[in-house]
Every structure is written in structure tokens, then in C-alpha cells.
């Protein structure tokens, strides 16, 4: 995902100043993706260049010290709708854990079961820490809850994969 679509989604809700977009985006996404303000202004410049947003006429005169308020254009609305309609693509397998385990299996000097075991401990601790956070989040705080659900289920998938690694390595008699 690019910041571009995130900002377009914010501007589709209402016309706002650039500085307000950062906090609004972070609030909507439960702090999962902190932005820096430079990133926001650079992206706004590109969105304007591509005709997806435009400065709200009048806002510059009234509130010159705060810069433009920005609004989404018809082209920007179409781009945003298309983004929501398009499924997110799958990344190729290149995460460090998968690669590390594959390399450990191939390395006769490395105890691959130990690599798996250490990682499983770390993954389980991450799951416990995320679950602890879940206990503190109210059931009505939907964005925070969904973000934690997402992180927990990813960690769970990792834990399941590590369990499977363990079973397969044992079945093949690998160290």
C-alpha cells in the first residue's frame, strides 16, 4: 500500500489541511502506520500533480499561515474506488524467518530444530504480549481490536508454521 491511497481516503471524507491528515490517518489505522509530516506533504504534492486532489479555493487567503486545505477531485474519487475494489496482491515468500529456517536445514553445522524452537518461544511471547494489549482494549474500539486481531492471527500463522516445521523435521530425523 502507498501513503497515496491512505491520504485519498482521508480527503474523500472531508476537505482538510495537510497537517491534519497525519493525525487523522494514524487515528483511523489505530497507530499501525505512523507517518512523518514530510511524507504527507510530498505525497500531497504528487497527488496534486496527478490531478487527484486540488487546493480548496479560498482556504489559502483565509488561513495562509496553515497552508492549503485539500479536497479530492473526481479523478481522485475514481482512483480511490478502484483501489478499494482491487484485491491486495500476494507478496513472494522472502521473509527472514522462512529463509533462515530453510538455510538452517541446509547447513549441517546448525541445529535447525533449535532455530525453530527459539523462534517459537519468541513468537509465543509476541502472541502473549498482543493478547495482553487486547485485554486493555474495549470491545467497542473496533479499529484497535481489528489491528490486534490482524497482528495476532499473523503471529498465530507463524506459530502454526513453526509447529509444522518441528513435526516435519522430526519426521525426517533432521537435527
Amino acid at each position, binding site marked *: 500500500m502507498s501513503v497515496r491511497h491512505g491520504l485519498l481516503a482521508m480527503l474523500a471524507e472531508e476537505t482538510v489541511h495537510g497537517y491534519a491528515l497525519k493525525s487523522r490517518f494514524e487515528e483511523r489505522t489505530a497507530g499501525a502506520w505512523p507517518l512523518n509530516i514530510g511524507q504527507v506533504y510530498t505525497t500531497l504534492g504528487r497527488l496534486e500533480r496527478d490531478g487527484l486532489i486540488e487546493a480548496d479555493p479560498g482556504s489559502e487567503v483565509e488561513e495562509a499561515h496553515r497552508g492549503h486545505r485539500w479536497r479530492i477531485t473526481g479523478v481522485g474519487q475514481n482512483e480511490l474506488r478502484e483501489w478499494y475494489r482491487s484485491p491486495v496482491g500476494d507478496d513472494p515468500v522472502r521473509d527472514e524467518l522462512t529463509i533462515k529456517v530453510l538455510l538452517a536445514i541446509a547447513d549441517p553445522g546448525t541445529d535447525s530444530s533449535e532455530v525453530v524452537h527459539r523462534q*517459537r518461544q519468541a513468537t509465543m*511471547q509476541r502472541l502473549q504480549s498482543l493478547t495482553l494489549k487486547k485485554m486493555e482494549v474495549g470491545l467497542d474500539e473496533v479499529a484497535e481490536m481489528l489491528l490486534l486481531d490482524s497482528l495476532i492471527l499473523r503471529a498465530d500463522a507463524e506459530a502454526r508454521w513453526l509447529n509444522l516445521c518441528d513435526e516435519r523435521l522430526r519426521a525426517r530425523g533432521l537435527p
Partner: protein
Amino acid sequence: MSERVVGEWTLAPGSPQLVLQGVTRFYETGAETVRALGPLDLRIAAGEFVALMGPSGSGKSTALALFGALDTPSEGRVLLNGRDLAGLSLDALAALRRREIGFVFQEFNLLPGLTAIENVALPLELDGQPLRDARLQAAEAMESVGMATFADRFPEDLSGGEQQRVAIARAFVGPRTILLADEPTGALDSVTGEVVMRLLRAQCEKGRTVVLVTHDSTHAAWADRVLHLRDGQLVGLEGTP
């Protein structure tokens, strides 16, 4: 946190409530002897929430049956609140299960002919408590699992999640301080399963000891300590003991 009275015993928080010393459990299958568990040494503190994980046949349910005095070890000792279970008569073991240990299973095991509150009150009535006292305690337990308004419904009129909440209330009603849960979310959807985990965690926060058997990492993560069993042996643990 003050000391807690458990039956006739007084337990300081954090003191070992369940102890396994060199416990092994063999089963005879025809001419073959299979070791289902152990040798296992384990201490579970009062007020601790422990999850047991592992593949099928790893010994999780065997361990839980030993904790709950439903089974006896082939070798070694199981101590509950300092008492060696091997020294107790069958009647004493039955009394211990009624008064000190609550069980929650995947299947809710509620009696269909009794209402929800009657199911919860039943263990107290079986233990000789006056009906009025049993009902009062059952009503409190139903309240604490958010099921007060369902008290007079029969199990068939409750959803799976609601039945499991009643089963949890039944498991901790009265003076019991240990909850043993064997895959309690196995028959529930994810969101309802999480409600059950929150209830078990809440019981732990109130000072009860919870031992959960699960194959689900997301549920084990509600525990203070996660133990991994494989071929009857502990192979790893996470969390703070």
C-alpha cells in the same frame, strides 16, 4: 494480595497449588505398554494461568486428568494444595473434585432437563449445601459470566457460546479455586471463543488457578505460561513462570 483459604488449607498467592513430581502414566494396549506422559516435573502456582499445548497424543489431556484427580499416575506423585492424591480414598477424591476443582470441556455437558441456573447449582447441591444457598451462589456465578438473564432457560434454548458460559459458571461456583479446561473453545467460532478466554482470564484475575489444554496458539496466549508437550515430555515453555 492477601492469603486465600482453599478448603482447609491456607495458600499464599504464588505458592504451588498443583505439583507433579516424577509423574509418568503408562497405558496397556494389548501386550504393549505405552508411555502417554512423563516423567514430568511441574509446579503450578496458585492464581496462575497455564496453557498446555502440543499435537494430538502429546499427553495434554492425560496431564489434565491427573491434575483433576480423574486419573492416577503409574509412577510419581501429584500434590494438590500440598496433599498427595495417592493418599486419599475414593470418597475423599470425589469430595476434592466437587469442592476444589472445576472442569470445562469442549462439549458443554449441561444436563438438558435442568435450567441453566439449576445446572450451575447442581454441584453445590450434590455436595450437601442447602438449596437456597446453592441457588444464591449459582446466581452470583451466572451474573459474573454475564448470563444472569438466561438463568431459567434450558440448554437447548442457549447458543453454544452461552452454554459454555454456563459451563464455566458451573466449574467455578462455590469454593473451587482450580479450573481445568480441555479445549473449551473447540466447538465455538472465533469471536465466541475469545469471550470464553476472557472469562477464564477473569477467573484467573480473581485468584483462581486455570489450566487450559488447547491446540490454538491464540488461546494459549491468554495464559501466563505456555507449556509445550511432545510425546509426553515438556519440550518448551513460554511466558513468565
